[in-house]
């Protein structure tokens, strides 16, 4: 039996692979046409690096983070790499993911991404999907929801965040060079972040 974390990361990887051309197309509109290509290259390497025997969630996430860092390149590499490594730090020595762990993972990933990318919410970046997702998740958990419903809420908020990126001007990354011309286009990074969360949700739901 492959470990849970292996199956979860596989699910994320499948989603990224399946959406490779879509992400690249989004990036073509406001960036430099490589987001899907780079992410797919990164996850292909991640799947070669992690093993079905990796049961320590922290170890697997750290491996994934290091691999993304060295394979993706661009801005997404350091940002996703940092997010996975920060999440890995939280989960070292753990083989089960508890609702509180997920909350801590969201927070650590966000703070890592913000530190590395010097970005805040509302700049048309992946943070516009991840921050609302984190907030929705935490709110549901504190209301006493189970993890799957909380994650459902996180995913809808992430999608709303992706939609929101269509309405704002990019002020970070290459899309910022377009100024107002970036309005109307959805952010590829926010999209890949939402896809990641949806893949985790699908894994949790056993889809």
């Amino acid at each position, binding site marked *: 039996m492959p470990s849970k974390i292996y199956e979860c990361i596989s699910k994320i990887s499948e989603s990224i692979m399946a959406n490779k051309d879509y992400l*690249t197309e989004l990036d*073509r509109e406001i*960036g*430099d*046409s*490589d987001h899907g*290509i*780079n992410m797919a*290259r990164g996850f292909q390497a991640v799947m070669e690096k992690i093993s079905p025997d990796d049961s320590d969630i922290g170890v697997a996430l750290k491996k994934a983070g290091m691999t993304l*860092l*060295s*394979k*993706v*390149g*661009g*801005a*997404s*590499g*350091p*940002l996703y790499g940092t997010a996975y490594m920060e999440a890995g730090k939280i989960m070292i020595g753990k083989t089960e993911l508890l609702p509180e762990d997920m909350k801590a993972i969201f927070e650590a990933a966000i703070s890592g991404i913000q530190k*590395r*990318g010097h970005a805040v919410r509302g700049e048309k970046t992946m943070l516009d999907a991840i921050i609302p997702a984190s907030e929705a998740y935490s709110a549901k958990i504190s209301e006493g929801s189970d993890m799957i419903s909380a994650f459902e809420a996180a995913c809808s908020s992430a999608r709303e965040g992706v939609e929101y990126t269509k309405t704002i*001007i990019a*002020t*970070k*990354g*290459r899309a*910022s*060079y*377009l*100024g107002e*011309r970036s309005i109307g286009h959805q952010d590829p990074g926010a999209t890949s972040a939402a896809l990641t969360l949806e893949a985790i949700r699908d894994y949790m739901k056993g889809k």
Partner: protein
Amino acid sequence: MKKLINSVDNIVDEMLDGMTAAFPQYVKRLEGFNVLVRAKGPSDKVALVSGGGSGHEPSHGGFVGRGMLDGAVAGEVFTSPTPDQIYEAVKAVNGGKGVLLIIKNYTGDVMNFEMAEDMASDDGITVSHVIVADDVAVENSTWTTGRRGIAGTVFVHKIAGAAAEAGLTLSEVKRVAEKVISNVRSMGMAVNACTVPAAGKPGFELEDDEIEIGIGIHGEPGTHREKISDVNNITDKLIDKILAEGIYSSGDEIALMINGMGGTPLMELFIANKHAHEVLDGKGIKIAKTYVGNYMTSLDMEGFSVTLLKLDDELKKFLNAPADTPAFVQF
């Protein structure tokens, strides 16, 4: 898409081996990495490392050699190299006097180079960096990532490289590099977009009679598009935007670069250069040195950029110093 490639996945790898085979007297490849370093190995001076996505050839590997860079890191096409690759380059070129990273101002490049700088500093190597942001097409405000680094970066390689070769310390080389950065401005345009091999189609589409003004070097769209006019008129627009910066005045001495984007005939670049000289002469700006050619390209993009560098005695001395690299030879 029609490209002279074997496989999209092997472009950078095969290109680097091809460059090494062409210029063994200048460069060698760090085994297992997408890094070119000087063939002779590190020397007793400050070392310079630059790099970025591939697709800008001859940048940056073509500028590895005496009087310019010590190492160049090649990322995937238009994608910043990763921290581990940059870190290997820093370790390989370090001759004990410190390493200066020359970074073009892109979100990804800055993050990856800074992470490599952290890694090398942890190893006890003295590393510092400068960020080139010469593209006046981009508004420089706190609300954007800031200006892009484009063709003006070549002047940073040249002048900081000469300063390092002259034996200046790391902090002095950095000071000189920063002086170049504050004195250099560029602006580019495209007649046609480029096609990233892995994407298979152009980064943007232009009608037969349209041009894109204010393009970067990654196939990204520019600031606006307009109807094509003659090259004198287009050159005027690029120069006007640069002069609007207010840092070049009558009586100043400058270096001028007319840089091809990769798919533009030299013939057209020379025509643009002729007019650039007329315009700048007319404004009393003295052109001390002119460079026309493909220095910082964008794959097969058709178009060009204009770069002006204001010179003082120190910059002029280092600009005129000899350089001997695959793509930049000057005696």
